[in-house]
């Protein structure tokens, strides 16, 4: 069945965009300006994507782009880790085999900037013959623009999908204990402990405990304490706030989490929550779809979706995200830019959101009642997404050695689950990471 939001014709695409502009959802560019989508017909683009629900959406509707533009797309999608390795090696060689690259901002942003691997899209973005009038900066979530622009404010990519960390909670377990969703970190800990009953194999909380994967849990909690692990390019992970966040992580993971949580990545945490024996699960919004799938879940219709409670200093939803960039080495930059623009268009954003595959950065899509109506996830999930967007903060530092950062602090956090002292572990990790950070920018 053809989606009401997208038919693969240029006329409909432009009409939809113009309507949005006219509705005042987006702003400023004259509605008379029109993108010549067929300008690069006959060009062949090489596109490198991450094999993920987000990448799959692009692949699914790729034919629409080809019909709209006459551009042929050769798309390759590989799993996240392998894609990161492949693209880094190719980009560092100076001769990547692709024109468009799908990147994870929270891991690759600074690395790509330092390598000067992405083309400057600022000029294209301002050019009415290349950019649809609906595409204006004011429509993007602040985090998306932070991700997409480099330190000088140059636009290096287009923000594609955002991942806010929210709390999934089992209403049935809460009701059984007469508990309400917590409003503060303090309440979150006490609620998790109150929900835990080891005799019935019921636990109050689950999150990632596995090295590397667990670091964003701690950094997201740290945002609630008003702190970040790197301040002005220097390691600040042994601050009072960082230690408090680590202590909270340790308490939740040792007193309220299932046995063996130190080996849990998101998949194991998700499995535990789907079994209906876990009160709260803290992770990205993109992991929601299986929860409402009766074939995979025992918590269908019983799950609450909420913004993380307020911390002592702030309420902040840890934010991660993907973008699409045009390689600096590409000889088909304009055509590649058109692809990126199509990928984050209103129609594609609607597909992304409605499938629960990801969340577009564009507010006009999230606010569109017709789009929301087609979302397969409960309205509460969309509300949590929108509310998280309002308190969104980048959860990982924008540095080159993000993987080392996650590994080193991940080991410290795993050790804390094993009973180690948070302050001592963070101090040790900071001493280990400081020279790595210094080398990376040296």
């Amino acid at each position, binding site marked *: 069945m053809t989606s009401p939001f997208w038919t693969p014709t240029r006329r409909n695409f432009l009409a939809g965009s113009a309507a949005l502009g006219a509705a005042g959802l987006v702003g400023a560019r004259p509605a008379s300006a029109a993108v010549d989508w067929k300008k690069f017909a006959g060009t062949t683009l090489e596109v490198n994507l991450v094999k993920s629900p987000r990448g799959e959406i692009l692949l699914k509707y790729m034919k629409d782009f080809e019909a709209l533009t006459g551009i042929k797309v050769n798309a390759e999608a590989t799993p996240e880790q392998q894609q990161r390795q492949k693209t880094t*090696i190719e980009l560092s060689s100076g001769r990547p085999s692709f024109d468009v690259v799908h990147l994870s901002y929270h891991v690759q942003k600074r690395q790509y900037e330092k*390598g000067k691997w992405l083309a400057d899209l600022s000029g294209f973005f301002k050019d009415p013959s290349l950019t649809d009038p609906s595409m204006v900066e004011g429509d993007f979530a602040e985090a998306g623009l932070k991700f997409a622009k480099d330190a000088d404010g140059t636009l290096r990519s287009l923000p594609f999908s955002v991942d806010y960390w929210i709390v999934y909670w089992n209403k049935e377990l809460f009701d059984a204990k007469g508990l309400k969703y917590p409003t503060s970190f303090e309440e979150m800990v006490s609620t998790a402990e109150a929900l835990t009953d080891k005799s019935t194999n019921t636990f109050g909380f689950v999150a990632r405990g596995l090295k*590397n994967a667990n670091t964003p849990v701690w950094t997201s909690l740290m945002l609630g304490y008003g702190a970040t692990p790197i301040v002005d390019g220097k390691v600040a992970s042994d601050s009072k706030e960082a230690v408090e966040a680590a202590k909270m992580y340790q308490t939740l993971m040792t007193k309220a989490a299932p*046995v063996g949580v130190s080996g849990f990545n998101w998949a194991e945490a998700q*499995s535990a929550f789907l*079994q209906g024996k876990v009160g709260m699960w803290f992770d990205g919004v993109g992991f929601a779809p299986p929860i409402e799938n009766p074939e995979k879940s025992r918590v269908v219709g019983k799950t609450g979706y909420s913004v993380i409670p307020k911390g002592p200093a702030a309420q902040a939803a840890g934010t991660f995200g993907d973008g699409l960039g045009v390689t600096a080495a590409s000889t088909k930059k304009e055509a590649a830019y058109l692809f990126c623009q199509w990928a984050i268009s209103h129609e594609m954003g609607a597909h992304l959101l409605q499938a629960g595959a990801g969340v577009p950065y564009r507010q006009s899509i999230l606010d569109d009642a017709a789009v929301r109506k087609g979302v397969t996830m409960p309205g509460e999930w969309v509300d949590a997404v929108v509310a998280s967007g309002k308190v969104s903060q980048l959860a990982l530092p924008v540095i080159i*050695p993000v993987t080392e950062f996650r590994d080193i602090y991940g*080991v410290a956090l795993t050790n804390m689950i*094993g009973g180690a002292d948070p302050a001592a572990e963070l101090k040790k990790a900071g001493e280990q990471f400081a020279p790595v950070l210094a080398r990376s920018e040296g």
Partner: protein
Amino acid sequence: MASVTVDTSAADAVTAKGVKPPRLAPNYWPFVVPALVVIGAVIVFPWVFTLWMSVNSWTLGQEQTFIGLDNYIRLAGDMRFWESMWHTALYTVLSVVAPLFLGTLAALVFDGQFPLRGFLRGVFVMPMMATPVAIALVWTMMFHPQLGVLNYLLSLVGIGAQEWIYNQSTVIPSLVLVETWQWTPLIMLIVLGGLAAVPREPYESAEIDGANAWQKFRYLTLPMIAPFLMIAVIIRSIDAVKSFDIIYAMTQGGPGTASETINIYLYNTAFAYYDIGYGSAMAVVFFVVIVALSFVLMMVRARTNWADMEDR
């Protein structure tokens, strides 16, 4: 056409250890060039290049600079490196000893005569035919503390839930369990081959002398299958020391770094941190260790071959 002449006088030179290969005239060497080119390109060049990278600071996306032995000095003080070396040694030893013991036991059982022996042998060797990553995924589910079948089976006999690969102190033994499950059949096949070659006469003499089953095994079977056991040890050691797929798929070296072997650390350094220079230094050191281990194993093997035992 180049003529080939062989100095046959050299072929007559016989030593106590064997026959010396004939000395070849210089005009034979052009025939060796293609092989030398291939070896140079496929083996020598990568190693020379790795050595070169190991004396450079080279992170993908950044400038490459010559730093001499700094990467090696950094390695010497890198506790994570030494920890990973220890994990590699422990993992290798356990992954050799456990399958060797169980494989030998299985070979002794399957060497006997009993109904359905052929069928059961077929079933027994099936694990070694499976893909390591597929095995890893299945075992990961089996090890799951809440959902895994292993804890369910333990609960049936009153044993509490174990954390298996999800606990820092039990992760290596748990991984070795998987390795043992997969590779015991290989040892069994090698030892079974050895048992088939063992002559019957010494056993008849031993029985006349009143030897019991243990004595026959200890003083006859074991010495006679020793060369086969050594081959099994060498094959298993090489395989275990370079083990990567099962560990990476099941734990990625975790929890923390509790199961991080040198291969995993090297992989992370080169392909997750993109620190190619440091990763190369690690590869060079690991190569030296492997060569040393190979020499030791070759020497031990030389001591266990039948001809030498007869000399003694």
